[in-house]
Each structure stands twice: as structure tokens, then as C-alpha cells.
């Protein structure tokens, strides 16, 4: 792989990789390290690039594997939902009370999603936030497309049940 190809095809997905790593690790510094490591790894495996059909999915798979290795390597504490609940962007509303209520509900949704097993959570985020197709998610996670659908169904069901238990309904 030439430097030009790396710069034109891999570097532009850096932001996506960072976001992906951040969601897995919940920490800016570690997400940055993992993104950097992933790019280094991609550069180191350049001979494999020619056979790839979906470069972006491959880069994301490498990022995920590195992030999961980091989580496994030591007793890594992924920032939980409550840590970030306050960081959620405030919704533009008229009344401060409504803003507070809105943030509270968003915090609960966030916690419900964070409580899912990693695989479910990742699939849900890739589909419902990033808008990836089933095939792209299957490529990123290196699993069958039917597994993506089954896991997505379970993930949505899990969040739905949690929100029902918390009695979180529409605003």
C-alpha cells in the first residue's frame, strides 16, 4: 500500500475509529491510543490491503479487537453510563425544567444501552447511531449477517425492557 492510498483511504476514517474506540473504552486518552495503534497496525499489514473489499470495516474490526484486548489485558474500568450522563448535550428547550427532564431521560437511555453486553451494545450503536447496514456490521464484527439481526433484536429488546422498568416514556 502506498502512502497516498493510506492517506486517502485510511486516514479519513480516523474520526470514525476514534468514536468507535471511545464508545468501547469510554475514555478519550485510551481511545486516542487505540486509534493510533490501529492505524499503525493497518500500515503494518499493508500487503493485506489489496484483497480487502471493505477497508473501513477492516479498520474498525482492528480497532475493536485492540480495544477489547485493552479491556481484557488488565482490570480495565470502562466509564459507565453515569460518568457520561452529565456530558450529554443539552437539548434546546425553552424551560430549564424541561431541559433537566430531557437530560435525565437521555441519561437513563444511555445507562440502559451501556448496561447491554458489549456485542449487543456495539451492534445497536453501529446500526441505530451510525446507520451501518447489516452487511457492514457483519464485516466489522466478523460475524454472520443473521447473527447481526438476532443480536440487534436482542439489544433493542433489552433496552426496551430496561426503559419499561424505569418507566421512561416519550417526552
Amino acid at each position, binding site marked *: 500500500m502506498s502512502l497516498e492510498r493510506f492517506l486517502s483511504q485510511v*486516514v479519513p476514517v*480516523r*474520526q470514525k475509529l*476514534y*468514536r468507535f474506540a*471511545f464508545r468501547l473504552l469510554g475514555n*478519550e486518552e485510551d481511545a*486516542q491510543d487505540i*486509534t*493510533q495503534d490501529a*492505524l*499503525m497496525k493497518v500500515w503494518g499489514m499493508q500487503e493485506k490491503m489489496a484483497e480487502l473489499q471493505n477497508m473501513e470495516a477492516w479498520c474498525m474490526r482492528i480497532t475493536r479487537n485492540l480495544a477489547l484486548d485493552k479491556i481484557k489485558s488488565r482490570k480495565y474500568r470502562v466509564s459507565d453510563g453515569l460518568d457520561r450522563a452529565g456530558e*450529554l*448535550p443539552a*437539548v434546546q428547550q425553552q424551560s430549564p425544567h424541561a431541559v433537566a427532564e430531557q437530560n435525565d*431521560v*437521555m441519561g*437513563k*437511555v*444511555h445507562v440502559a*444501552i451501556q448496561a447491554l453486553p458489549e456485542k449487543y451494545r456495539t451492534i445497536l*450503536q453501529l*446500526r*441505530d*447511531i*451510525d*446507520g451501518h*447496514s447489516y452487511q457492514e456490521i457483519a464485516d466489522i464484527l466478523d460475524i454472520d449477517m443473521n447473527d447481526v*439481526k*438476532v443480536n*440487534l*433484536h436482542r439489544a*433493542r*429488546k433489552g*433496552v*426496551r425492557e430496561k*426503559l*419499561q422498568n424505569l418507566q*421512561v*416514556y*416519550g*417526552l
Partner: protein
Amino acid sequence: MLEKYWEGETSLEEEEALRLFFRTPHPDLPEALQEAAPMFQYFRMEAEKVWEVPPARIVKLSPMRHWMKYAAILLVAVGIGYAVKQQGQRERQAVVAMKEQELNDPQRAFDETKKALQLLAKNLNKGTSKMQKLSYFNEATSLVEGKE
């Protein structure tokens, strides 16, 4: 469509339609539809979030970037060399120690000396028999020549 969504069977287009629908509040909706609203709102907020990615660190690719690998190889080589050297030294020391032990033990020293002298005597006897044969030959030659 929402039921399809929970089942994980909606297409991206259908999900986009749901996202658009829940973009605006619908307070008059039945509870079954209301429950999805916070999720879609959360997804929209997360999708619209601007991520500030810290600038990439420049990593200079020098041949010494794998210095730990080279150091490890060197360390292993030095270790093997040292081990081999130590082994040789130990063997030599063992031989010397054995010899010293033999010399310090009078019985063993006597046995060894005896063995060495026997070997010498055996070799000397070999020479004597040859000399005896030579002597017979000389005597015979003198008789033939009539010297005696």
C-alpha cells in the same frame, strides 16, 4: 413499523422514517409508541454529536523503532553465550577436581602409579623380546662367518 423495528427487521430507510417521526414530540401518541421516543431521541443526539478528535501524533518510523526486539535478541544471544561458556568452565573444573581428588587419595594414587608402571614395563618387555631375537640373529651370523 415500530414492531418490525423491535424485531430487528426494519431496513435503513424505514429506520430513517422512524427517526424523522420521533424527531418532533407527539404527546397524543399511545403508550406503545411513546416508549420508543426517548431511544430515537438519544440516537439522534448521539449521531449529531460533534467529535473532537485530538490531532494524530507523528510517529517517526526509524529502524530503531523496534529497539526492544533487537535488545531482546541481543540479550538472549548473550545469555546463551554465557551459559555455554559457564558449562565449558564447569566441565574443566570438574576434570581438575577429579584429578586433584585422585592425587589426594594415597591408595588411588598408588593404583594409578602402578597402572602406569605396568604399562611402561609391558612396553619395555616388548622391546626386550625384539632385542633377544636380534641377539640370536647376530650369534647365528657370527657362527656362519666362522668368527668363533
